[in-house]
């Protein structure tokens, strides 16, 4: 039993070590544009995987994830700015700066989680389209509130945030996020979430407190979105409310749908693919002088609905495909 648990931890430790090795050996020799793309890909993985917990595994369609990201981003940035104004050296590379950033990320994540809890409590009684509309509205409320909060910069946004998000920290967060959500889904509580997705009435008759399960998933999803927001702010050094509009939420939803609702590795793959796509479309926009991004996203979604309605991986994980092959050969 104990050794089995330890054995289960091995892939995660390997992932962590790989990330550390990449950070120290490979990232320094990468062109800066590429390492930038990798950082954004990592942030998008955290966002997509956390939204998948709500949309894919619990079956509650939320399209307000950018709102939670904004809460975490602003809260973490506000915290580090306050500390720097108090005279603490936060230049990149100091160990203290990294520790403080971790603290700020947790602070932003927790605040976002609390907001998720408060929003989820009343709104998760709604289903389907109605829930989607409420979460969309919530995202807009956050954005408009930020526009009008002067201590957070209002429409000008927050600037001068120390650039202390590192490749290592981003991918540490990726591994932790995927690990926590993976373990959650495989746990008893995770099974209750799946039950809610499958049939809410039946879940309730099994004694699952469905409201509690949904709100819990929502709050955990919001927590990790907040962490992603914190990483984002401390990489970009500026935050403006416009960065957290509906399009941002929609982008995350596309990642989840593209990868497959209910597949964590699908979300990871889709987040990386779409981040790359966005960067190359940016180059394309220089030629065409028009931003075709949203048009191409929509086309991808339409194509996906026609060809693979369940997303790239459906509810399966990458390792399911690995496993199937050898058994297929021996049979």
């Amino acid at each position, binding site marked *: 039993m104990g050794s089995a648990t330890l054995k289960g931890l091995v892939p995660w430790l390997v992932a962590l070590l790989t990330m550390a090795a990449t950070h120290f050996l490979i990232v320094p020799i990468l062109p800066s544009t590429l390492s930038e793309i990798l950082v954004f890909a990592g942030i998008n993985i955290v966002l997509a995987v956390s939204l998948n917990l709500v949309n894919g595994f619990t079956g509650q369609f939320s399209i307000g994830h950018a709102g939670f990201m904004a809460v975490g981003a602003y809260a973490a940035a506000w915290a580090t700015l306050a500390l720097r104004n108090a005279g603490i050296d936060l230049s990149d590379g100091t160990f203290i700066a990294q520790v403080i950033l971790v603290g700020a990320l947790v602070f932003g994540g927790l605040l976002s989680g609390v907001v998720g809890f408060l929003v989820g409590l009343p709104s998760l009684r709604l289903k389907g389209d109605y829930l989607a509309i409420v979460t969309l509205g919530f995202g807009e409320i956050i954005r408009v509130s930020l526009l009008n909060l002067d201590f957070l910069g209002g429409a000008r946004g927050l600037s001068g945030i120390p650039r202390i998000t590192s490749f290592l920290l981003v991918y540490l967060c990726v591994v932790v996020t995927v690990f926590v959500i993976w373990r959650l889904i495989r746990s*008893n509580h995770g*099974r*209750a979430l*799946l*039950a809610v997705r*499958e*049939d809410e*009435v*039946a*879940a*309730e*008759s*099994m*004694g*699952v*407190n*469905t409201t509690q399960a949904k709100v819990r998933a929502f709050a955990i999803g919001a927590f990790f979105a907040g962490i992603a927001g914190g990483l984002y702010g401390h990489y970009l050094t500026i935050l403006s409310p416009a960065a957290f509009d509906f399009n941002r939420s929609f982008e995350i939803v596309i990642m989840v749908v593209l990868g497959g609702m209910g597949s964590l590795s699908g979300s990871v793959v889709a987040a990386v693919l779409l981040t790359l796509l966005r960067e190359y479309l940016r180059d394309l926009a220089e030629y065409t002088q028009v931003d075709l991004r949203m048009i191409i996203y929509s086309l991808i979604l339409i194509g996906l609905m026609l060809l693979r309605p369940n997303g790239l991986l459906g*509810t399966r994980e990458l390792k399911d495909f690995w496993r199937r092959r050898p058994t297929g050969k021996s049979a």
Partner: protein
Amino acid sequence: MNSAAATGTTPMLEVKDLAVNYGAINAVRGVSFAVAPGEIVCLLGANGAGKTTILRTISGLLRTTKGEVWFKGEKISTMPAHTIVQKRLCQVPEGRGIFLNLSVEENLDLGAWVVGKAKDYQEDLNKAFELFPRLKDRRKQNAGTLSGGEQQMLAIARALMSHPEFLLLDEPSMGLAPRVIETIFQVVQDINKRGVTILLVEQNAMQALQVAHRGLVLETGTLKLQGRARELLESDEIRKAYLGEI
């Protein structure tokens, strides 16, 4: 009148003057009955008589408009459904309500939700497989790939995982082949012999009355008749109205 009063035991479940509305429609209007420990009681009636509504109100999935439901001396009609399950009163929903995209074993796991995955989990699982050997062969299979009869068996097995003292069964024979129905009714009796009290809703009145101790006949939301199953089976009125004999 009812056997609980007749035998002098205190009833396990008591429904008092129950009324349930769907908006302006009165689905159940003032129904009272009691179920004694160890009984199989069968709720009969035509479509729309209010059978399922009563069951869903007892299990907490619907709210009462008027009246109360008491279980083991506790008023449960104001409790949420998931709390009522913890009192060991469990419903097997109509249309089976199993989780089609989860495996048979995961379904059974969820059945054990209220008791937790305790030491006796494996024992419970074995008991379930003993009762329904076919489920054992299909334990890793998605529940959606099971036949209708197997799905019903899974629904019952899953309910048993929560250690119920009282089981609400909603139309367990619906859409099943006659031979499978026989198995299901046999199992209902077996479960009852293990000490589980059962309230059964059925369209299949003939078969239900053969396994039940007592029957309650509903008509448009009111209790029209009640009595011992054997007496109901022999009553001309019942045979004409509900058992399809002319």
